């Protein structure tokens, strides 16, 4: 009997074959040479992100968030462990990973002297779309992300919220399976922030996109993410839904995510607790 293909689901298959995870890492490690030996920025991260999940990746400054993100997006080679991203092995097929992921860095990635149109079409071309396809995709993205009237503007002339929408459009140029967002709402006004949250939710509900999100804002993590992973000193110290973390680490029924965060990272004890607990969001630890 020929194997069933997704195009001809004649017989329902039960139990359903579990879909491979969007991201799976095993002992992912990165150390950097330093004057006094080596610094271990990430010390063996084991992580699974299911397809269509919005994962919030949290941690204090220097916890290893960005290093992990840079490894998963092929910008930095791991010094140990392994990872599979969008079905491609990071170590052996980084180009395969690149074809399937979108990455939006915290500071964006556009040249302020270039027009929105040129940045978007060039980005699409770098993903091997033909000239005509790149132009069509740019119009599509502009319509979706409300950039239609701004295409001829230079990137420098955009507002913070418009710029952020452009950054995300750049990351979506090739319809990626997984979108990596590094601190996506830092520096945005409340209105733009709400718009961005709505956009991320839409990407998941309408396209089933997996979103890997790092953030400093606990309210953002709680509002957007299905599951949170808290890292500290290069290791995962807690993970679960916001509710589960609050009940496991918060200590009392009315505990907030911030209480859980401080309990999990121990930063309430190590650093100036008055700073950490007094700060609303973003937390400053």
């Amino acid at each position, binding site marked *: 009997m020929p194997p069933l293909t997704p195009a001809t689901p004649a017989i329902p298959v039960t139990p359903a074959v579990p879909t491979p995870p969007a991201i799976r890492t095993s002992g992912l490690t990165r150390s950097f040479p330093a004057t006094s030996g080596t610094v271990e920025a990430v010390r063996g991260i084991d992580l699974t992100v299911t397809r269509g999940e919005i994962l919030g990746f949290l941690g204090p400054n220097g916890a290893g968030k960005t290093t992990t993100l840079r490894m998963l997006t092929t910008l930095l080679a791991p010094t140990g462990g392994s990872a599979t991203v969008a079905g491609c092995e990071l170590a052996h097929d980084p180009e395969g990973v690149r074809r399937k992921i979108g990455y939006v860095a915290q*500071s964006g990635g556009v040249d302020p002297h270039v027009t929105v149109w040129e940045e978007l079409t060039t980005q699409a071309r770098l993903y*091997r779309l033909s000239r005509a396809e790149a132009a069509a995709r740019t119009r599509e993205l502009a319509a979706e992300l409300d950039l239609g009237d701004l295409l001829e503007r230079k990137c420098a002339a955009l507002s913070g919220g418009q710029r952020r929408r452009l950054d995300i459009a750049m990351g979506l140029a090739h319809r990626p399976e997984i979108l990596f967002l590094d601190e996506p709402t830092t520096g945005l006004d409340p209105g733009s922030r709400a718009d961005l949250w709505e956009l991320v939710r839409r990407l998941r509900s309408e396209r089933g996109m997996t979103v890997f999100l790092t953030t400093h804002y606990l309210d953002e993590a709680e509002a957007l993410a299905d599951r949170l992973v808290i890292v500290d000193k290069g290791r995962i110290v807690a993970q679960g839904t916001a509710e589960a973390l609050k009940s496991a680490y918060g200590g009392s029924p009315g505990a907030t995510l911030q209480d859980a965060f401080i309990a999990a990272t121990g930063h309430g004890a190590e650093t100036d607790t008055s700073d950490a607990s007094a700060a609303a969001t973003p937390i400053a630890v």
Partner: protein
Amino acid sequence: MSHLLTDTGIIFGRYLRQTLRSRLALTFGIIQPMLFLIFFGPLLERVDLGGDGSAWQVLIPGLLIQLGLFSSAFAGISILVEKQYGVIERMRVTPVSRLALLLGRVLRDVVQLLVQSLILVLTGVAFGLRAPVLGIVMGFAFVAVVAMSLASLSYALAMRVDSPQAFSPVVNAVNLPVMLLSGLLLPMALAPGWLDALSHFIPLRYIVEAVRAGFVGDYTGGTVILGAGMAAALAVVSMTLGARLFRRAGA
């Protein structure tokens, strides 16, 4: 291979448009050799430079290589600016060929330099330069190879350092001695023995001598062959090293 060519074309197009947007930078780049041409060239007209041809046939090949040396060695500055904008990382997360990211930029630099070289030579003609067209074209080819080599190294260096403060001193520390020891302004035939001997360690010396030979109509002599060999060796070493560093940066 087809990806490499297409990707190189896309990157080349992007940076060519950048150059066309900044005509001011293009103009300023050529001011220094023009100043030498206008204010230094006339001093040489009555001096015996010890070779064939006029002072212009000696000076202008030197100025061409000097233009190539300085504009290409500083090409990496643009990478430092783009790093701050996040453009470099954004591109490195796409499947674009790593080599194309380098080649597209280098190709733009070569085209830009050839336009500047043409302007320099035409101005030289107005001042009194007379040289065979074939020799001038040969000179342009040498300038293109020097530009490719040095720009590759410059981009690779820029990928490794974080700021213009770390980049410029290194480039200056190399460029000035290379310029003085290559005999770009005056031929090394005028130098005392020790200086002449020292300059033999600088590949650009052979290249500038080959361009000078071309400017007086010698296309097949030993000077040209030696210069071509040096240029090819410089290109192979620099491009290999540049491509390797460019590919690995950040990893």
